[in-house]
């Protein structure tokens, strides 16, 4: 069954890749959507059939074949379904299905229709492999597969230079992260002797996580990073996550990745692939909980990324770029959650974010199509009356991401902020700092999202006026005459509505107990508990009993004890912080509304508009030195002198030897016979004389 889930999209990809060129658009769309639908239906079926067992922590394996077995190293092609991967495949296949549906409309008339859907299906295969793998090497296969698909789809418009450049940038930056990931897996194997996640007695497999549990906690110290132990593994894996999930300092590829078609941005660069890093960190939570240094670094980087990207997002004019920075920022929140030990909250945010960010991207795609391929917000405005459904659904997404109460984003973001405030895994004063950064970021988030909405849907219509956009004048003339904006076709609107519903209601699966007073069970986190390691107090062994900092029983994510004490806990702190969050969100929206409602074309500080000049800094500090070194050292010295010298020398040597040996190869059959006979005689003679 699990095999069928990952294979269905692969079959679709194979069919489309091999025969798609001769198919019609309807058939291609049908195949692409139906294979993903198969995966989705199977995922839901498995989930509802087994959710009780999954909640108990049972794991379902599906062994396909032994992939590599060398010495003690073993890697199986085998799949694992536990509560974590179950959650992932549910929302991946669900969101992906609707994005596929959306794409059938969005890509209409494109010459590479079949190619697009072949890549998309292959992406689904890779992503599901990543999620369902039961060892790190299989995960790495999926990891690289999604990277490949990302590359292919970013560079989908391969006739355009900027798309190719963006694709290459994404690939190369990801390569840095992947290298870290691979090193981490190798080190893990070296230390643990296995790359499987869990024990599986049926196959006689020892899991890396049970090894991790048997180890002592690393100390919270810089030296631990370089000690080659658990912390080093965790840091290396986190390097991989920063690449894939676009965290500082490797986030630079994601904004450029918007060069791909919008459904790609929605599926790969918002909802699924970029959250693979969070998935991996949550999956390896047993390792992270033993490496507090890595947790601290992860939390700080997450928070920093969130703030950093949010501020850049304030100053972008391209509607997709705004969303891209927003994605980076939200990913930062997720890592912040993981870093403070709230893995469940992080995954919950992944889950809700998948809905509202996919919704926002698809809405943006709908706007772009409606505007006849215009992405610049300067040339939008007043679209509300032209695209009512798009507006309505994006409105939902806007409120959800801004943290307006009772929408999905509110619950998950609030949970993260609360957890970072009360975390006991980090030394003082980090929890407060992290909470502060997170809260401030929430404010900025609300502001820039309001800016986006205001510039796009409210105010004066700025399209059709070619002289308005200054530098983009020529651009406007090309596209500006396509007539008035109009609402998108039904195949695009329907996914928007479905995802909007998701953005509203997804949050109710995981309402924090503090808010509901325990009336509503936090179903989501209970479900995830068995798959995620418990965050541990670094100083003591009082793992099971709450923590001194926490007024709440939910300070740690672990199960039984928390439940036992939860009922008597006081939720006042949590409720107070929630109130602060609500105020922040409403304040952000209000600020944005007032400011940008009045001056929608307000020029932001150039530092922000140029993204803190990070690309320029990277160019100067990393790329130029590499280029200079490559040209002067690698090319002109090593390649020309040494390697070519070796190659040419080898060639000349071979020429010399051949010149000598040529006389043996006379072409005269009889001399060959003479040699053969001589050899035979010698061999027989050897055996005779022996």
């Amino acid at each position: 069954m699990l095999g069928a889930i990952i294979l269905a999209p692969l079959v679709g990809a194979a069919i489309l890749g091999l025969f798609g060129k001769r198919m019609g658009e309807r058939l291609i769309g049908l195949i692409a959507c139906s294979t993903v639908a198969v995966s989705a239906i199977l995922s839901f079926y498995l989930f509802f059939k087994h959710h009780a067992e999954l909640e108990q922590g049972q794991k379902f394996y599906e062994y396909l074949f032994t992939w590599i077995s060398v010495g003690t190293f073993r890697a199986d092609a085998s799949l694992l379904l536990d509560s974590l991967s179950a959650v992932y495949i549910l929302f991946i296949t669900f969101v992906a299905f609707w994005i596929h549906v959306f794409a059938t409309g969005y890509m209409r008339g494109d010459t590479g229709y079949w190619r697009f859907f072949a890549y998309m299906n292959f992406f689904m295969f890779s992503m599901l492999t990543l999620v369902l793998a039961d060892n790190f090497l299989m995960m790495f296969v999926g990891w690289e597969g999604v990277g490949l698909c990302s590359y292919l789809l970013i560079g989908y418009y391969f006739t355009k230079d900027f798309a190719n450049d963006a694709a290459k940038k994404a690939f190369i930056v990801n390569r840095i992260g992947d290298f870290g990931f691979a090193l981490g897996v190798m080190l893990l194997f070296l230390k643990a002797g296995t790359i499987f996640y869990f024990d599986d007695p049926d196959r006689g497999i020892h899991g890396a996580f049970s090894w991790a549990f048997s180890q002592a906690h690393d100390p919270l110290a810089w030296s631990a990073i370089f000690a080659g132990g658990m912390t080093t593994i965790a840091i290396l894996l986190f390097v991989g996550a920063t690449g894939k999930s676009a965290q500082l300092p490797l986030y630079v590829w994601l904004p450029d990745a918007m060069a791909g078609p919008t459904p790609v941005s929605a599926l790969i660069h918002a909802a699924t692939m970029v959250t693979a890093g969070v998935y991996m960190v949550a999956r390896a939570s047993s390792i992270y909980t033993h490496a507090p240094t890595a947790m601290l670094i992860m939390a700080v980087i997450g928070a920093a990324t969130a703030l950093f990207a949010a501020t850049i997002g304030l100053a972008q004019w391209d509607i997709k770029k705004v969303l891209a920075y927003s994605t980076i920022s939200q990913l930062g929140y997720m890592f912040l959650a993981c870093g403070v030990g709230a893995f469940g909250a992080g995954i919950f945010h992944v889950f809700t974010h998948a809905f509202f960010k996919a919704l926002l991207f698809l809405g943006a795609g709908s706007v772009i199509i409606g505007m006849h391929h215009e992405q610049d917000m300067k040339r939008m405005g007043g679209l509300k009356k032209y695209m009512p459904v798009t507006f309505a659904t994006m409105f939902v997404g806007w409120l959800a991401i801004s943290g307006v109460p009772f929408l999905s984003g509110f619950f998950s973001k609030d949970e993260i902020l609360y957890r970072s405030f009360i975390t006991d895994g980090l030394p003082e004063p980090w929890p407060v700092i992290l909470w502060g950064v997170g809260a401030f970021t929430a404010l900025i988030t609300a502001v820039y999202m309001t800016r986006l909405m205001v510039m796009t849907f409210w105010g004066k219509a700025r399209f059709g006026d070619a002289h308005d956009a200054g530098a983009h004048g020529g651009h406007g003339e090309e596209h500006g005459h396509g007539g008035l904006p109009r609402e998108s076709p039904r195949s695009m609107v329907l996914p928007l509505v479905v995802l909007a519903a998701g953005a509203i209601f997804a949050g109710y699966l995981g309402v924090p107990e503090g808010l509901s007073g325990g009336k509503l069970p936090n179903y989501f986190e209970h479900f995830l508990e068995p798959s995620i390691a418990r965050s541990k107090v670094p100083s003591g062994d009082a793992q099971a009993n709450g923590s001194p900092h926490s007024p709440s029983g939910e300070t740690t994510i672990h199960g039984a004890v928390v439940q036992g004490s939860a009922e008597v806990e006081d939720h006042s702190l949590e409720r107070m912080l929630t109130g602060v969050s609500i105020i922040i969100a409403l304040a952000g929206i209000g600020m944005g509304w007032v400011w940008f409602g009045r001056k929608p074309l307000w020029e932001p500080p150039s530092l922000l508009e140029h993204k803190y000049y990070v690309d320029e800094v990277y160019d100067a500090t990393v790329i130029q030195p590499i280029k200079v070194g490559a040209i002067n050292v690698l090319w002109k010295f090593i390649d020309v002198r040494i390697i070519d010298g070796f190659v040419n020398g080898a060639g000349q040597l071979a020429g010399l030897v051949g010149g000598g040996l040529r006389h043996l190869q006379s072409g005269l059959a009889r001399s060959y016979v003479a040699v053969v006979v001589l050899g035979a005689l010698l061999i027989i003679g050897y055996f005779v004389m022996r």
Partner: protein
Amino acid sequence: MVPLSWYLGLSALLFTIGAVGVFIKRNAITIFLSIELMLNAVNLTFVSLSGFFGDVGGQLFVFIVMTVAAAEAAVGLAIIISIFRNRESLNVDEVDTLKL
């Protein structure tokens, strides 16, 4: 009865004659014939050992050698024909450029 060693000795002689033929003849067809002679000498060894040891395997081997010889003759003669077409000669000492 005829001792086994007589058969094997005859086989050895025939094989040597075949080998000498490959050595000293220059006509490609004659060389080919000498090779066939060597194959037959080996066949004789197989058949005689098969007979004396009462094991049918040797004769099966001969059977297969014959089919291989047939295949070899087909390909070999085709090569000889195409060489002759190109060079008007069957002298192996003239065909030494390692190409047609």
